[in-house]
């Protein structure tokens, strides 16, 4: 894949001209779904240095541009994925989906107990009066963890070209990054390296033996950690007021320091919350610390929380998995019968339409999906339950872009936006269609035939959980 794109890059450079010295592309004679405006026919999209420079039937194509004749094809904006682990190494991406087996857990526990016995005596009050939590990874920066794996091509081929990314594990999962899903390396992927803090009020180990081991324990960890950050904030204030003398400097613990931007409303707060009660809990706990209007990720039962979402002005990134809330999580709602699960799934498919009707800001996320090729299929399921085609397009592109703070950069085919486009045969959301070409960050890439969306696609390669 890297070789192919390098060759394309070389080809583009060879034809570069004065107007756009690095590279210029144009797609002509296409049906263009701009999302921000009307659908254009026989139109061109012109790009330079990875940015869209002109759109329309009368757009002038530079003489030196490499031109793709898209007669009979449709161009649409690359999907903006509200939340995923794309671009993270597998072990970071794993999160709660990949649990170690029983023997590994037992061995790890034995090691941990032995280690702590060596360090702090087992009856030391610190161990039970001020337990050290697992899952506080607030100082982890996604931007520093990115390591684009080869599997990104399969993601791009499904039409997803940018995503909000953070590791899946942890209560405070760390600082998210908004990334383009095309290399060649991590720095080249970053659109916004510091895109907010992602939080999930669940025990870090999925109910293991460490602290916390329960949802209420996770809430306590959330509360204690933010109180610690607030205290550091207070200390900094006192120290500065004292002219930075007469007191020892504040204790800049990395995990609490990393949360000060959140408390000072300089950073967005994302809460992973799927079921109804988890959503209400997240909204309440965001409010308890006066965080910036939170965005809910997952949101399988968001339709039931519409009044509270509206009251909080919260946005929602709906998981396209439409999986029953907490399925397999072992927390209260697991083990539902196939009938109940089917009912929950239908209800989840109807959530996007309900949110659209109520005017709740939402977008789609692939978080929780097991087969990444199914993005369009899942959106079609939501459309069968009442989501309009126009809203479906927006929920895949412009709306999530706006929610993650990139409404000027991504999500539509407009002059000035990042050139993330998909060229497809047929109509992607209403008919038989297959993606033919991808323009990712201004680079024209062919869709790999083997990775084309197919029913019952490659689960092993597609798994991000």
């Amino acid at each position: 894949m890297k070789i192919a794109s390098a060759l394309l890059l070389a080809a583009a450079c060879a034809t570069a001209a004065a107007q756009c010295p690095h590279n210029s592309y144009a797609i002509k004679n296409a049906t263009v779904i701009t999302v921000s405006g009307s659908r254009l026919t026989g139109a061109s999209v012109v790009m330079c240095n990875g940015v869209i420079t002109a759109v329309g039937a009368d757009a002038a194509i530079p003489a030196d541009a490499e031109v793709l004749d898209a007669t009979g094809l449709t161009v649409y904006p690359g999907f903006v994925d509200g939340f995923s682990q794309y671009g993270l190494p597998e072990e970071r991406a794993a999160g709660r989906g990949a649990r170690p087996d029983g023997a590994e857990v037992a061995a790890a526990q034995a090691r941990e107990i032995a280690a702590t016995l060596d360090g702090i005596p087992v009856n030391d009050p610190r161990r039970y009066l001020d337990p050290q939590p697992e899952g506080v990874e607030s100082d982890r920066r996604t931007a520093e963890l990115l390591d684009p794996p080869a599997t990104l091509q399969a993601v791009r081929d499904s039409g997803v070209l940018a995503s909000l990314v953070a590791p899946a594990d942890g209560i405070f999962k760390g600082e998210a990054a908004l990334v383009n899903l095309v290399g060649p390396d991590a720095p080249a992927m970053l659109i916004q390296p510091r895109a907010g803090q992602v939080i999930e009020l669940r025990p870090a180990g999925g109910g293991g033996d460490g602290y916390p081991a329960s949802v209420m324990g996770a809430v306590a960890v959330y509360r204690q950690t933010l109180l610690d950050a607030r205290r550091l904030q207070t200390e900094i204030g006192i120290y500065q007021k004292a002219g930075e003398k007469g007191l020892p400097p504040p204790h800049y613990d990395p995990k609490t320091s990393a949360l000060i931007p959140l408390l000072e409303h300089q950073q967005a707060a994302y809460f992973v919350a799927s079921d109804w009660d988890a959503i209400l809990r997240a909204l309440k706990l965001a409010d308890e610390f006066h965080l910036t209007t939170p965005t809910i990720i997952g949101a399988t039962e968001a339709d039931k929380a519409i009044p509270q979402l509206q009251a909080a002005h919260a946005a929602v990134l709906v998981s396209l998995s439409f999986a029953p809330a907490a399925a397999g999580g072992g927390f209260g709602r697991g083990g539902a019968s196939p009938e109940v699960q089917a009912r929950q799934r239908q209800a989840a498919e109807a959530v996007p339409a309900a949110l659209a009707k109520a005017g709740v800001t939402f977008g789609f996320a692939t978080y929780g999906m097991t087969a990444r090729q199914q993005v369009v299929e899942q959106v079609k399921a939501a459309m069968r339950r009442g989501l309009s085609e126009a809203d479906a397009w927006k929920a895949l592109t412009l709306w999530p872009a706006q929610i993650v703070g990139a409404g000027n950069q991504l999500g539509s085919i407009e002059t000035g936006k990042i050139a993330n486009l998909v060229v497809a045969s047929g109509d992607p959301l209403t008919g038989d269609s297959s993606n033919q070409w991808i323009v990712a960050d201004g680079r024209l890439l062919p869709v790999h035939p083997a990775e084309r969306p197919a029913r019952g696609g490659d689960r092993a390669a597609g798994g991000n959980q």
Partner: protein
Amino acid sequence: MNRCFRYAALLTLAALPLAAQAYPTPQQAAGLAAPGDMLISNATVLTASHGRLENTSILVRAGKITAIGPKLTAPAGTPVIDGTGKFVIPGIIDEHSHTAVDGGVNEGAPSVSAMARIKDVINPHDINIYRQLAGGVTIIHIFHGSANEIGGEDAVVRLKWGLPVDEMLYPNAPQGIKFALGENPKQTANPHGRYPATRQGVDDAIRTAFIAAQEYKKRWDDYHAAVARGETVYPPRTNLNLEPIVGILEGKVLVHSHSYVSAEMQGLIDISDEFHFHIATLEHCLEAYKIVNEIKAHNIGCSTFADDWSYKMEALDGIAYNAALLEHKGVRAAINSDSDERARRLYQDAAKVIHYGDVTEEQALQTITLNPAWMLGIDKTVGSIDVGKDADLAIFNGDPFGPSALVEKTIIDGRVFFDRAQDLANRKPVAMYEQLFKPPLSLGLADDGGGQ
């Protein structure tokens, strides 16, 4: 895929009537949110405070009982429930419950988990809330589990099915906290590699926690004093695990302790003397009858089972006469469920106290109404049928302590939250639903659903 969706459509049709009735619609809930008016006429009223009143009416205005007496009249438009032949009792209070807790009832990793709060994880949509309403229960005391010497903070919850959590919390109920002694906390030590693992260790950990809380409180007191003197100092760190223990020392947080063996109960009483705090309730307290005088002297309530014992070593000395013996000695006893299921028939468990120990009808009724209200610190406003108290009531088809007693209506704040007639009418769609899910269809669905 097509087959899946065909079944899915069928499922939607079948599920709609059931779902609509299983959980109140927002419109229905809105009608239940504000306290209501009603007149219950000509019933047999078991007051739990001043005996049994025959042919008596209860007038409710804005959720409060405003009059009790024969032949009361209500202003025009007030809903009237004909109580002829019915029995009315105060709404049942289940003093020990773990119902409707999301994501685990124990924060079992550290042996002190006072930082955990049940109020953060109440699931107001738990079907057990509705089922317990069907057993005349109006208030449940939701506890953290018993894996920790000092567990999390509790919640006193009214079963206002259909309303959000905030509207279910009993207004102004004192905050309580769960303690636990004996087998449960010490057996949780091993899987978590934690201390303590013995009964004496349990006492040590509790004592250590109180000493730490005293020191913690002193740090804050010193800080406030320094600030008052105009000194520039950093505040101490807030430790959410010690804050509730300071609350206990200040008399603001009620202690409810899971306990079985008389010696360990006595041990906790000794610790309470040492640190000058009050124990509100000994929970389970199967051997309380052995130390009745000590319990009485410390004004502690005992919340126990009617006749449940020998289910583990420390429960071997339990007897069915425990509650009655306590009552005879003037110690307030409650009969609790500690179970989603038993909570639905607490009135039968209360009847057993009469059967085994020859207590009065009123004493038996108090074990599930006024006494738990007292243990929770809410007996001034709820727990008996008296003028001025909350209109939390259960209407039975006959004597609640009789073998065929059934709850017909359960009322909270003057609103009907359970109505048996309505419930029976709603069961028809359930039967239809079950017809649709005979095994062949389920199997077909499972095959197809997996390919999604």
